């Protein structure tokens, strides 16, 4: 499953480096990472803490800029975009799932899911329809009116997944999505990811849990800011 035809890969990371600080105290979080992810792939990025996987995630999600190297997202060179275009890119191309859910408090699940569409300028009626569809997809249609503090961790994370999906992004980016969940909720979320992968979504999951990585088709291992392993495997679909 490499880049096929004229279609550019979803992710094309070329020799990206990231240095925090300067001089003697400089920390090299990434020391030249190259990675290509094709449309429809399901990749797990693994590594111990300090391996640079979170830094990579922030760069992939356009939340941070690399110190060196190039990063193309669906053929667009991210390094050349100004702040306004980056915001549009984050809005349309990327769906985020965070370890700590990052739902906005005191807003209903429905409103949280609608938020990216609101920033994308979608009309209210269309927004409501798509948000309901996304919530149905993660099996939470009956919880649309609940606020985050009325939902369990697993439910909150599913709302977050719905929010990430609702704009039909090119890339679904998840940073330790099951890190704060019990095993039942973990299975829920991984099940949602499996289904999404089957329908052709491109998913990149950052994790340190083998259980999560077991669902992916490809596992990339990072150590000390470098890719040390990149294997393709047959996913063992749970249940």
């Amino acid at each position, binding site marked *: 499953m490499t880049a096929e035809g004229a279609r550019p890969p979803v992710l094309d990371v070329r020799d990206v480096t990231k240095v925090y600080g300067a001089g003697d105290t400089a920390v090299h979080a990434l020391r030249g990472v190259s990675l290509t992810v094709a449309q429809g792939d399901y990749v797990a990025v693994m590594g111990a803490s300090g391996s640079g996987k979170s830094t990579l995630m922030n760069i992939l999600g356009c939340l941070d800029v690399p110190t060196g190297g190039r990063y193309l997202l669906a053929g667009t060179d991210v390094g050349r975009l100004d702040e*306004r275009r980056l915001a549009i*890119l984050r*809005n*349309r191309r990327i769906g985020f799932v965070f370890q700590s859910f990052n739902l906005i408090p005191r*807003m209903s699940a429905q409103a949280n899911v609608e*938020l990216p569409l609101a*920033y*994308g300028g979608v009309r209210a009626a269309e927004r409501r329809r798509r948000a309901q569809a996304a919530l149905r997809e993660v099996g939470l249609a009956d919880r649309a009116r609940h606020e985050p503090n009325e939902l369990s961790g697993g439910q909150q994370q599913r709302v977050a997944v719905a929010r990430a999906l609702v704009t039909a992004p090119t890339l679904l980016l998840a940073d330790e999505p099951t890190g704060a969940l019990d095993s039942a909720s973990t299975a829920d979320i991984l099940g949602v990811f499996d289904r999404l992968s089957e329908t052709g979504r491109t998913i990149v999951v950052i994790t340190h849990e083998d259980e999560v990585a077991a669902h992916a088709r490809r596992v990339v291992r990072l150590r000390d800011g470098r890719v040390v392993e990149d294997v393709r495997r047959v996913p063992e679909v749970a249940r």
Partner: protein
Amino acid sequence: MNPLEVLRFALRGLAADKLRSGLTTLGILIGVGAVILLVAVGNGSAEQVKKSIQRLGADSLTVSPSTSGGGGGRGGGFGGPPGMGGQSQQQRTGPRTQARDLTAADASALVGKAAPSVKSASPVVTSQSVTAGYSGTSVTINQFVGTTPSYFAAANKTVASGTPFTDADVTAGTKTAVLGSTVAEELFGQVDPLGKRIDVGGIRFTVAGVLKASGSSSSSFNDPDSIVVAPLSAVQATLTGYGGLNQVIVQATGADTVDAAQSEVTEILNQRHGITGSAAADFTVSSQASVQSAVGESTRTFTVLLAAVAAISLLVGGIGITNIMLVTVTERTREIGIRKAIGAPRGAILGQFVAEATVLSLIGGVLGVLVGVVGSRFTIVGVKPVLVPSSIVLALGVSVAIGLFFGGYPANRAAKLRPIEALRHE
């Protein structure tokens, strides 16, 4: 992302902490309300003073002994019915000849062929804070005035019941008095005061009439209706003694001859008091216009002072908004990070926080206008406030501007945050 959407986010943000939003609004409310109300009170008291001066009549002049000179021997202090502190017409620098009192002879000299514009001149002696009694009740009268009958017309006093005293009474020194409405009411209540005798420092005055209420200012201080008018000779004999007059009230033949009357009066008195060339006059002739401008000046200062105090409270309200917005931005840094991560453009974040601040100040401002307008319907410390429309517009405008500018700084700080920094914020 349309503006309506941004506004909705802002309202939702405000609704999230109702107590805080309410208190912040209250700060602006008090500021705006205070500006409107205090300016209205200042304006109202200015109008009131203007009215009480107008009561003197548009065609009257007041001659009073110059207060800076030594014409001693006066009993009741300076001043009389509102009319002190007028602009001096004859104040010159230079050596003063021996100052002379104003006398009844001066007053009568002002009427005649030498002064065709003068209709009447009433000599006035005043005794202040006189206690009068009637059958066990006693009241303090602000002004006990001794004068001639022409005073009633010149000072714009109308007799409501009974009759004013006559020139014969003045000549004979009859102890008869015309009471101001406040005095009559406080002394007699429901009893008809006509013909009754009141006791003033052991001397009995027969009540000949009661004045019509001037209809303003119910405050006990400076009540124009707390007055008793009696014949000049009787008051001099009993209360003030035969020193100089406190005032001469001159009535011109018409409103348009006031200026002519003023110069005639000045000329006659200069002659009689032997004031020539550079010598400073020992009297002051002031017209209503000059008194009005002098008093207007002081009430304007008063209004500006009140407005300044109110403006400070409005400023404090504005600082409150800045403070709350800064706290809000800090508290919601993570939320801002989330919003940015899912693609909120900078303008949307900026707009949301500016809108929050503006909505707060606008609600506070509108409620403040409401409070100010409603509050000005009541009489405050004896003053009936008069709304100044420009103060409403100004206060509301300032409150909205405060929201925009003071809210803009925290909002800009929020919008400039890098998403990754905002997300890491705990």
